[in-house]
Structures are given as C-alpha cells and as structure tokens.
C-alpha cells in the first residue's frame, strides 16, 4: 500500500526534480530505504554512519515528528504522508 513522501527542494535533484513520490513500506525506515532504492543517494543524505537520522534531518509522519513516535520503527499505513524537512531556526 503506497505512502506519499514529500521531498524538500535540496533533495529534489535526487528524485528527478519531484517534490513528491509514492512508495511502499511497513515502517518509516522501510519507506525511506525504498526511497533510496528508487532514487539512489537518499540514504547517505538522510542517515549518519550509525544508520540514525542525521541531526538536522526531521521526518514527519502525518505532521507529527517521528522522534515523538517510534522513530524509524514507526508503522505507516496506506495513504499517509511522510515529510522530510530540514531543521530551521526559530523565533
């Protein structure tokens, strides 16, 4: 069952310029691996050497930060949207 992944402008060249792709997977981690499978290069941009999300990469499932859920192990269901968002400053 497909999940929509939203891609920030910095990473769109990896996906042929697309801002959104549809992928399969049971968890957030699986979907992101599928993203790298479909468009090689994503994994090294999103994950550090230990396989964790890089410090400045935020991933939101249905608008909730996956760090508040179960991280990369968070289950996903068909029709949900996963957003990759660079961390930004505040105020």
């Amino acid at each position, binding site marked *: 069952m497909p999940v929509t992944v939203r891609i920030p402008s910095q990473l769109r060249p990896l996906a042929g310029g697309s801002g959104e792709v549809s992928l399969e997977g049971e968890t957030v981690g699986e979907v992101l691996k599928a993203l790298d499978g479909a468009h090689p290069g994503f994994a090294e941009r999103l994950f550090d050497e230990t396989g964790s999300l890089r410090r*400045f990469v935020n991933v939101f499932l249905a*608008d909730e930060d996956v760090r508040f859920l179960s991280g990369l192990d968070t289950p996903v269901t068909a029709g949900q949207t996963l957003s990759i968002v660079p961390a930004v400053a*505040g105020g």
Partner: protein
Amino acid sequence: MDFVTGLRCRECGRTYPAEALHVCDFCFGPLEVDYDYEAIAAHITPESIAAGPRTIWRYADLLPVNERAPVDLGAGFTPLVRADRLAAELGLGELWIKDDTANPTGSFKDRVVSVALTKARQLGFKVAACASTGNLANAVAAHAARAGMSSIVFIPYDLETAKIVTTAVYGGQLVAVQGNYDDVNRLCAELTSERPTWAFVNVNIRTYYAEGSKTLAFEIAEQLGWDAPDHVVVPVASGSQLTKVKKGFQELVRVGLLPEGSQVRISGAQATGCSPVATAFAEGSDHVRPVKPSTIAKSLAIGNPADGWYALKAVRESGGSFAAVTDDEVIEGIRLLARTEGIFAETAGGVTIASLVKLVSEGVVRPDERVVALVTGHGLKTIEALVGHVGPTATILPTLEAFDEAVQLQP
C-alpha cells in the same frame, strides 16, 4: 561593500556562494557566513565604528550585508544599564542589563530582521515571510512595511493578543496556524520548497538573519569601553542567539577589538515547560531531545530547537551552565527586574532574570564576575502573564478620607 567570502556548512565544511541558501545540500547542516577577517581587521577600528550610526549598522563590516541604505527602523545600540539595585539583591558585584526592550518593535528580533531583509532585498526578494512566536512576527511585518515589501507571517493561533495586534497593524498577511510553534515552523520549512521566491527570514534567509544577533556582543563590548564581560546570561529558544553572541565576542578578538585571550562564560536560560537544551546539559548528553512545550514564555517555546546542539556546545566550551525555571519563577523574575531597575521585560526576560537568580544561588554566576543579562523583549507584549499578579494597590472613592484610610505611605 561587505567582507563575505562565502557560506560554509558547520557540519561537513562544504562551501557555497553567498546566496539564498540556509542548509547544506548534502547533510542539511546549517550554513555559516565566512568573512575575510584579515581584511576586516585591517579596516575596522573603535573610531570607525563610533563614526557610524547609533544602530546595528555601525558594525556593518562584521555583518553579512553592507548597503548604503539598509532596511532600517533603528534597531540596536540599545542601553546597557548598570543594575546596582538588582545586583545588591542578588549579592553580585557588577551586573549589567542589556535592555533590548528598547528596539523599534520591542525585541531583539529587529536586529536579525534588519539584516535579513536588507540581504533579501539585495538578493531580489519582494516578499518577506516568517514562522514566529510573536517577536519575529512584529519585526518582519514592521520592517517589510518600511522596505515596501509584502509580508506573510505565520504564528501559532494561541499567541498573546498583544503580539497579534502588533503584527497585524502593519497591514501584511497574518496567518494563524492551529498548532504550536514547531508545527508552524514545519509548515514554513515545507512552504520554503514550494515558494522559493519568498524570503522566509528564519528559513531560507536564516544564514544571514542569525548573524544579526552578533551585534548584541558587539554592543556589550563597545558599551563596556571595548572590554569583555566575564559572564553573559542568554535566553534560549532555537539556540541561535546564544551561539551568535559567542561568535560575536570571538570575532571581536579576531579583528583586534578585544584583547587576545578574552574569555566570556555564557550561560543559557530556559523555562522548565520547554527546556530541551537545559535538560541535555543537566544530563551530560549530546542529544537534544525534542519536547512538547508548555510555558507562559511563548517566545522561548521551541520544542525542537534547530541550534540547540550548538548552544549546548557553546555553553560547555565557555565554562557556563544552564538553568531552567518554572512559570511562577518567570513572573517573579519579571517583577524583580521591574521593581529594582525600572525595566519591564516580557516573559522571556523573566526567564533570563529567574535563571540568573538560580545560577547565582548555585554559585555558577559569581560575585567577582562582571555579569551581563540579556533582556530581549518588552513586557507590554506579554501582559496577560501578569494579570492577577499585579494591579492597583488600592481602589478608593475620590475623597481625602478614603485615601487616608486606604493608603499608609510616609509623606
């Protein structure tokens, strides 16, 4: 003319031209402005600065953009007030308040926005945008009006009334988002990809914007007669201001305006209802875990602070510490500063003062130090926080008898 040589990723060191870029394309690390410090050192003197305007633009040589006519409402060069009465209450020797309530829209955000929109205009942007907890909203709406730019400001829907009115009055678009600040921020980060022609000051212009906070350090040093304080207490939301205050003092050493070896300890102030960075410090952890904020200090209510890790590192390297204070202590902090020094701070200033109190009691801030506390926003912005805490000390009929009965003041 500016002295910028380019942008550099703070994480992986990749370099970029000085354009509207805010994160490293490779690792998403934040980009930092690089300068030709040798050229600046050869050019800048206390006299050249003193000959400049009484605004942040007197330090234009150390800012990422230098225009003859910046987007300017007069931000900066705010009073550095010697706070002897507060010092006496706390048992400190030399205490100063950097009173940034005196900025054009009442907070330090005028500094960063003046820099951001000057750069944005130079880069050709016509629309100014931001995600804000209120102070930034005020500053962006006002400076955009001044610059003749359109503005679109995104805020959490439950912001203080004063901050909504003081943004809306400038006539730009104001979008109240049903969520907390972190939700608003995420929306804006996504919108930045979809609306690349908008200058989101704290997203795609952030690299330049954040540099404006260095002027706090520049002013403190200049106002102390080109000398460094020993210890500065800084409120922490995203962590950007604290990081840039440290950078500001370091740059002054680098260009010869402060003596070699000048060391400034920097301590961070947070509210317990949103203290991800203070918590990481207390736990000795390198990982700033995001939290769901719940505090009256809404201008500091950033649960996922983008520069939290750098603020943590800056405090550790400088030999400072962190304090986290309750909402009751925040109110007490606001009242203490107002009562002793006549300065009315917003809730974030209450966090700073209450944290100062705590750091003094812990022996972290010491009586032998020259201490500066940053009060970064005006109390009129967050007046709701004080309702029920302060009010008339007597309500009487307009007669002398009623007055004499109700009020026992010495003549």
